[in-house]
């Protein structure tokens, strides 16, 4: 299981880091000793042996890590679900920091409330002004709670629509990042029209004349994901998943047993590769072995290139061509 593999790898990471520090210290002491001729020949010899010992231990540990990661190259769907939900996975704020400049946050639906589970605003991507927004989860339990685990209420969807309407008005492309367990199933959320808010977003997003690109970065679950995901291009990180609902929900509806979620994940065809095969996802973006949380820089680099290429392509379309391109994509499904 990827969980155990990651635990092992993280353990090795720590050991390697500690040992690297030790080796570094030893080597700098050695250099100093050699420079000042302070230590005796025997002492230097001994220190050199220690350093050799460190280095060979390091090699062994790195070999073990490589070996452990090799077993994480091919993952089962439920393992991908685990990675998609990993708390240290890059989130919307990381993507905004890593890929955009001049970010100006826009808050609130300007109707009733500020929903923190949706984060977005205006920014530049490769110098081009765009509207960027997405679900926000946070990297700590405290932040998770503050952002309601990335589960928006109607106010969040209306905020997203407000930002997107402005993008349409000013001709800015829209880039959305999808990472949500779904729309929040709460009492007030229902009273305030969860269904209506999602429906409005679907209807209005279908009409935009500006390019819309959606990137599924973690878990894309249900209408809560789709509500910011009606796009010309749907990109997915390699370990992201996209489905009608969580495997747990699926298992409990179909078999009245949420414990069968692994089995459900397999049947649901929810991985990036599955969705690519189904013609829903347009491109899968590679992640470091073991998951995106292992190397943010690599993820940003991979995503930046793909995103820019798709945006450039879409910006060549006329406004009405852009709208038709998006409508055609959904019209063809089913």
């Amino acid at each position: 299981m990827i969980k155990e593999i990651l635990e092992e790898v993280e353990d090795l990471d720590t050991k390697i880091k500690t040992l690297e520090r030790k080796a570094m210290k030893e080597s700098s002491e050695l250099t100093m000793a050699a420079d000042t001729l302070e230590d005796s020949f025997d002492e230097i010899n001994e220190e050199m042996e220690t350093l050799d010992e460190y280095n060979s231990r390091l090699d062994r540990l790195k070999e073990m890590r490589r070996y452990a990661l090799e077993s994480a190259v091919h993952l089962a769907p439920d393992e991908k679900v685990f990675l998609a939900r990993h708390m240290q996975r890059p989130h919307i704020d990381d993507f905004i920091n890593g890929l955009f400049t001049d970010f100006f946050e826009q808050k609130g639906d300007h109707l009733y409330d500020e929903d923190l589970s949706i984060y977005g605003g205006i920014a530049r991507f490769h110098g081009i002004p765009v509207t960027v927004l997405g679900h926000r989860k946070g990297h700590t339990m405290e932040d998770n709670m503050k952002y309601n685990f990335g589960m928006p209420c109607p106010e969040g969807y209306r905020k997203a629509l407000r930002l997107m309407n402005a993008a349409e008005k000013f001709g800015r492309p829209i880039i959305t990042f999808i990472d949500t367990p779904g729309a929040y199933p709460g009492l007030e959320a229902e009273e305030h029209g969860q269904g209506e808010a999602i429906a409005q977003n679907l209807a209005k997003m279908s009409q935009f004349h500006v390019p819309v690109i959606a990137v599924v970065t973690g878990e894309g679950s249900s209408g809560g994901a789709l509500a910011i995901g009606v796009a010309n291009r749907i990109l997915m990180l390699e370990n992201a998943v996209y489905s009608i609902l969580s495997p747990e929900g699926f298992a409990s509806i179909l078999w009245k047993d949420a414990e069968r979620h692994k089995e459900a994940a397999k049947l649901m065809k929810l991985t990036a590769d599955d969705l690519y095969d189904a013609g829903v996802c347009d491109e899968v973006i590679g992640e470091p072995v073991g998951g995106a949380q292992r190397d943010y820089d690599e993820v940003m680099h991979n995503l930046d290139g793909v995103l820019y290429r798709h945006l450039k392509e879409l910006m060549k379309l006329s406004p009405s061509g852009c709208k038709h391109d998006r409508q055609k994509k959904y019209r063809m499904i089913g």
Partner: protein
Amino acid sequence: MSALIDAVSFPARAKRDQSGLNLKNGESPDFITCKACNRRALRTIWKDNYYVCPECGHYSSIGAIYRMSLIFDPGTFKELNKGMKAKDPMKFPEYEQKVAKQREKTGLEEAAVTAVGRIGGNKVVCVVLDSRFFMGSMSSTVGEKVTRAIEVATRKKLPLIIFSASGGARMQEGIFSLMQMAKTSAAIEEFNKSGGLYISYLTHPTTGGVTASFASLGDITLAEPGALVGFAGPRVIEQTIHKKLPAGFQRSEYLEAHGFVDKIVERKDMRETLIKLIELHKK
């Protein structure tokens, strides 16, 4: 159960009504027992009351074809894409057999019935989701039939009436089911822009992806009394918030009070209300 289903699936099931299915339950075919109050009444009385319980007023689910027969001028409606069958895009285990069972039970090919016909002399496009077929869940074929019906209304500049009833997504069709929300909503928005009138009529139960797409996008939103209408199901909400939900939560009356329904319309007034609204929107 079967007694009720047979009673209401007029006219396709009229023959089956006398086929002995009712007798299997040890029940007389002349009576219907109300699911809500458990009291019995003559089938003819139920029928005259549009299958609303004459004792307690409970709204029994009715079949799509029967509902159409209640609203259209007699003999004026023609089904669109009648033969369109459910697909199995995910090759989901046992799905085909399950669909076959639904087909057998209802006499329908899918959960959506779409038609063109006249109401009070006015030509309209009408969609009815049938809750007896897989809980009216949104399959790719349901999405496709609904979308095509909306497109006909757009092209021919006809008013559009959609009776929603749905348990949500069709699990067995996965992401293809989800994407129908985007497809149908886009079609509604195009229809909207063409200036057409869309009356969304919410019936029991309207939940999940149907609530979060075309059902919530009407120019006029009507609802049958007591219908459950919401995005998340009440059980999921209770599990999430660890609280009991207030009485009447997510029922039509609750939605009306919270600003999402124009009017709750009884089944017996359904046709007259629709005619009035269509006439009011004539240019």
